[in-house]
Structure formats: structure tokens, C-alpha cells
């Protein structure tokens, strides 16, 4: 009797798991299949295409109207530089906030928290004018500058992580005569690999996803990022060129999704280390 009940429970559970898996995968699968379908329209008779073609992928790179290749390289460039700069800035500042007790520390933490609560593009107009004054509009430099400058504000998770590394470690090193910088470089950095990965990954992917600010700053088509381009593609020709949009989406999503899945372990650690201390 008991066993029978257990089997029913398991069967139901597996059925539910399969159903959720289908829902989770379906959109991704649909886009991949759409990108391989001949023709341009959003509507298709069959879920599984009768014929497969790579023509939309080729089109992305040959079309004069869509500079997809250029956008892709632009985004890659901005994302890599932003990732490096913001990882350095975030780890340095959060290490200082976590490890040292200095005057103004609590104020700094509160200011960080309060600033994080302003809707991010409330400052959009002002940043736009500042960039105009600095002659940085329509440059990638502007995006890198603004993304990295704001990075430190999102560092609570990193601070939380540093808090959990025993302080006796760095005290011991200090007694042995290491300078603060040495302690940071030789002891803290090797220990915080998961956190560094987390910060680097989120700032890298953040650039791929941001289109609001990028759209405001980047005016000429050659300077666009993928996000701006894709958004434009969807909004300007929804039904007629859907398959091309699908192909573009796949090319953006694949590297990032793979990165996420391979680095999952670090992500989970990053998420939970912010949580567990509630």
C-alpha cells in the first residue's frame, strides 16, 4: 500500500518535472528552430521545420542594413573592458568596506543602499548632458565609463562574501609583516575566485542586456551594441523578418547561456552567500 502510494507520488512528480522542463525549454527551442526555417515570417505551419537553412545566419553578416557583425564586436569590446574595470573596482571597494573599520564606513554603506534605490534612469538626462559636455556622446568610452562607475553600488553581495572569510587569516599575515596590499593580493584574491567569477560574469552579461542607456548614447548604427540592434530589429519589422531576429538572438544567447551553465556553481554560491546571513 505504502509502496503503491510512493510510486504514484513519484510518477506525478516526474510528470510535473517533465512539464516544467518543456515550458522552460520551449521558447529557446522555438527560437532556434525559427532561425533555421526558410522564409522570414513569424507564423509557421509546423513547429518542426520541413527544411533547414542557415541562410539567416549568413544574412546577418552580409546584409548592408544590419551591421550585426560590427554590433557583435562592439558589444564584446565594451563588455570585456567593463568586466575588467568593474571587477577591479567592486572587489577593491567591497574589500575595504568589509575588512576595515574606519570613520564614515557605516555612512558609506547607507549611501550605497540609498543610491541603489533610485530608479537607475532617473539620472539618464543628467548623464546624457554630462556626456555631451565631455564630448563623449556616441562613443563606447561613454558606456564603459558609466557602467564601471556605477558598478560599486551593486557590491553588497561581494561585501557579504568577504565578511565570511575568517579575519584571522589576514591578521596572521599582517603579523608576519605583509602589507595590506599584499594581504589583498596574496590571500584574499585567491580565496575569492567564486566571487570574482560572479562579479565578472554579471557585469559581462549586463552589458549584453542593457539597451536603454546604450540606445540613448549610441546614435550611429555603426556604433550600436547588439542589444540596441536587436531591439530595433524587432520593433521595425516584426513579422516580416522574424527569422533573422531569431538567428541574431541565438548567436547572442548561446555564449552567455553556456557561460551561465558552466559557471552555475559560482552563481549559486554568489546568490546564497547574500542570502544565508539574513
Amino acid at each position, binding site marked *: 500500500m505504502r509502496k503503491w502510494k510512493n510510486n504514484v*507520488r*513519484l510518477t506525478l*512528480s*516526474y510528470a510535473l518535472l517533465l512539464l*516544467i522542463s518543456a*515550458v*522552460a525549454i520551449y*521558447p*529557446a527551442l*522555438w*527560437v532556434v528552430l525559427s532561425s533555421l526555417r526558410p522564409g522570414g515570417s*513569424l507564423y509557421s505551419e509546423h513547429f518542426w521545420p520541413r527544411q533547414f537553412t542557415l541562410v539567416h545566419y549568413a544574412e546577418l553578416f552580409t546584409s548592408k542594413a544590419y551591421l550585426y557583425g560590427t554590433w557583435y564586436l562592439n558589444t564584446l569590446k565594451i563588455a570585456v573592458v567593463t568586466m575588467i574595470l568593474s571587477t577591479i*573596482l*567592486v572587489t*577593491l571597494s567591497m*574589500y*575595504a*568596506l568589509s575588512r*576595515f573599520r*574606519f570613520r564614515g564606513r557605516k555612512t*558609506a*554603506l547607507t549611501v550605497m*543602499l540609498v*543610491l*541603489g*534605490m533610485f*530608479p537607475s*534612469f*532617473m*539620472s539618464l*538626462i543628467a548623464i546624457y*548632458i*554630462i556626456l555631451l*559636455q565631455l564630448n563623449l556622446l556616441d562613443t563606447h568610452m561613454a558606456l564603459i565609463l558609466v557602467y*564601471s562607475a*556605477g558598478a*560599486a553600488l551593486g557590491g553588497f553581495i561581494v561585501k557579504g562574501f568577504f*565578511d*565570511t572569510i575568517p579575519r584571522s587569516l589576514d591578521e596572521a599575515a599582517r603579523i608576519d609583516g605583509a602589507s*595590506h596590499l599584499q594581504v589583498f593580493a596574496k590571500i584574499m584574491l585567491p580565496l575569492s575566485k567564486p566571487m570574482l567569477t560572479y562579479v565578472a560574469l554579471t557585469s559581462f*552579461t549586463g552589458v*549584453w542586456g542593457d539597451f536603454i542607456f546604450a540606445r540613448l548614447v549610441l546614435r550611429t548604427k555603426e556604433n550600436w551594441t547588439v*542589444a540596441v540592434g*536587436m*531591439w530595433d530589429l*524587432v520593433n521595425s519589422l*516584426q*513579422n516580416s523578418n522574424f527569422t533573422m531576429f531569431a538567428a541574431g*538572438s541565438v548567436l*547572442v*544567447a548561446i555564449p*552567455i547561456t553556456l557561460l*551561465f*551553465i558552466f559557471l552555475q556553481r559560482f552563481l*549559486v554560491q554568489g*546568490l*546564497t552567500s547574500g*542570502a544565508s*546571513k*539574513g
Partner: protein
Amino acid sequence: MKQHRTIAVLLSIVLQGLGQIYNRQWLKGILFMLLEVAGFIYIAPRLGGAIWGLVTLGEKTQKFVKVGKVAQMVKGDHSIFLILDGLIILFLVFVLLGVYVWNIADAYRNGKLRDEKKAVNTFRQSYEHATTFYFPYFMLALPALGVLFFTIMPIVFTVMLAFTNYSAPDHIPPAKLVDWVGFKTFVDLVKMKSWSHTFVGVLVWTIIWAVLATVTTYFGGILVALLIEQKGIRFRKLWRTIFIIPYAIPQLISLLVMKNLFNGQFGPINQYLGYFGLGGLPWLTDPFWAKVTVITVNMWIGIPVSMVLILGILTSIPRDLYEAADVDGASTLQKFRIITMPFILFSTMPILIMQFAGNINNFNVIFLLTGGNPAKGDYQFAGATDLLITWLYKLTLDNNKYNVASAVGIIIFLIVAIFSIWNFRRSKSFKEEDMIQ
């Protein structure tokens, strides 16, 4: 014997760095002095104009003047640039004042050392002293400057806009000037029928959305996590990886894809409904269904995050609690209600509140999916699914109602701030941060 410190302080007040030179800290003194000279050269000619600009917001508009036979345009004052230029100068003045105070304090400290017949630090020693005792300040200096100029100053600027009449069509520079109007924008938002109707409508939907979006993803996450962690379920890692996919795909892409999936005319969802003999639904074009769609899509995106979080917490629940419950003959449901749920709630409470606050500002889901539409005729520049934040965006970028947008921004901030500060204060990590170790 307080001679040295008095003289050093007085000299440093007169000219930054002079006190240090008096204390025979040559290099440091020269550095201080150069900084002051550079700052002075930059700021002095600009300060008067900056204050004038901030107070008056400009006096002349641009106009055409006849020179001979052709009309020539004469540039007027641009009120908005005046505000921003003024702010930049004021911020620089604050930074330099900070250095000035530091210089005086430093002169005093070293003067005191000399009064006590102790040697002052050489430049090398000062450097070492600084990197030991002021280390955190050095680490924070660069990020702090970035935040000051690219976050704090823009926010101050935008807050100031809320107290002006900077809006289309009558007050857009350079053709027209902008003036300070005090709290008029806020009063209009509440009292003027056309604005208040939109404001209240959008505010109510924002709160309904934030509650539903948070609750559905949270409990959805718990459900999925428990499903995976059940006794006897195999391939746990595989399930987890599959369920994480929606989280891994860049949001921008998945939302744009969803927009197409739910397309009323050509989208596959309606196509499938058709197979079952059901009529298609106006997923994105009917006010009610658009709301259902955004919440459903948000679940698809948000549940994986909650699931990851809760899976982490489930593993941290002590096993012996369940063993004890088994001994007492508790049913599965009882174990869940008395052990699992309180444990999850307790550890995720701060995150839950932050997610709620985050959902109030959840721009992407609404903007990319529906763009705030379907439009509502009796709303001012807003649609049925617009949140305060997307309304703010439309007010700013599409309609140039900068003053109303800033006022809405301040209101959003106040709502979010109340939740977050309350949450932050009560969370243990702030109060007892040093007790962890």
C-alpha cells in the same frame, strides 16, 4: 609650547601646503600647493557664473538679430546646462574644500609632533603611514569619485528638475527658459484631474504587479525546489540545469522572443490554442490579458532565481530536525509546514523584500514585452500595463515632460526607500555584522 602647531595651521589656512613646508615636509607641501593652484585657476573664473546660473536659470532666450540684411541667431542661456554646469562646479568646490580641511588637519598634527620634539615623517614614511592607516580610503577613492560624478550628481540634478517647469511644449531650452516653480509639479500630480487620474491608476497597478510578481515567483520557486529535492527523485542535477535555462538566457533576448510568442495574430501560442478549437486570446492588446501575460512571463523568468536560492537553503536545514519529526510520526505536510517553510521564510525574508522593491522598478519585463501598452485613452502618456518606472521613461524620452518625470522618480524612490531601509535596519547582517566571526 604650542607654537609650531599654531603657525603651521595658520600658514595652511593662508595657503594650502604652506604649513607642511613650514613643517619641513617639502614634497607633501608642494603637492598640496599645486593642487590648490590648479583648482583655483579652474574654479575662480567659473564660480560666479555657476551661482548666477543656478539662481536665475538664465535670463536671455536665443533670438534672431538682424545684422545688415540677414537675421543671425544669437545664442541665449540654456537653463538646463546652467543647472548642470553649476552643479559640477559646486561638486568640485566641495571636493577641494575637503582637501583643504585635510591639509589644515595635517598641518596641525605634524606641528603638534614638532611641539613635542618628535620627528615628522619623511615623504616615504608618510606614504607608508597612509597606506597602512588610510588604506581603505585609498581603495575607496576611485569608486567613490565615479559614484559621485555619475550617480550622485545626476540624481541631485534630476531632483532639482522636479522643482522647475522644464517640460514640453512651453519650457524647452534653448528656445525657451526654464524657471524654478517650487512644489507645483507635485501638487499638480495629486490635484490636477488629468495627472492625478493617471498617477493613481499607474501607482495602483504598480503595487498589484509588485505583489503578484514577487509572490508568484517566490512560491513557484519553492514548489519547484521541493519537487526536485523530494525523496526518490533521480537526475537532480539534470533537472536543475534544465530549470536554470530561463535564467541563463539574456533577459533582453528572452523577453523579445516572448513578445513574438504571444503575438496575437501570428504567434504560436494562439496557433496552438486554435488546434484545440479555442479562439486566440489578445495576449498583448487587451488590458486584462496584457496584465496576465506580463505576470506569466515574469514567472518564467523569475522562478529559476528563487529556485536556485531555495535549493541552497534547503541543503542548509539540519537533517536531525526531520529525523526528530519522523520519530514523532509527523506527516510530510506537517514537516513542510513546521520545519521547511519557517526555515525558508526566515532566511529569505530580506531577499523577498528586496525582490518586492526590485519589482516596483522592473522596467525590462514591462517595457520589452508590452511597452506599457495597450494605450489607455484617459491616461496621460501611459498605457494599461505601465508601471511608474516605464511611465517615467515615456514622460522623459518620448514626451519631454522632464519635471513630472523627476517628480515621479522621487516618489518611486520614496516608496522603495521605505521598504529597503526598514528591511536593512532589521536585518541581522547590518546590526550584528561583526558578530559573525
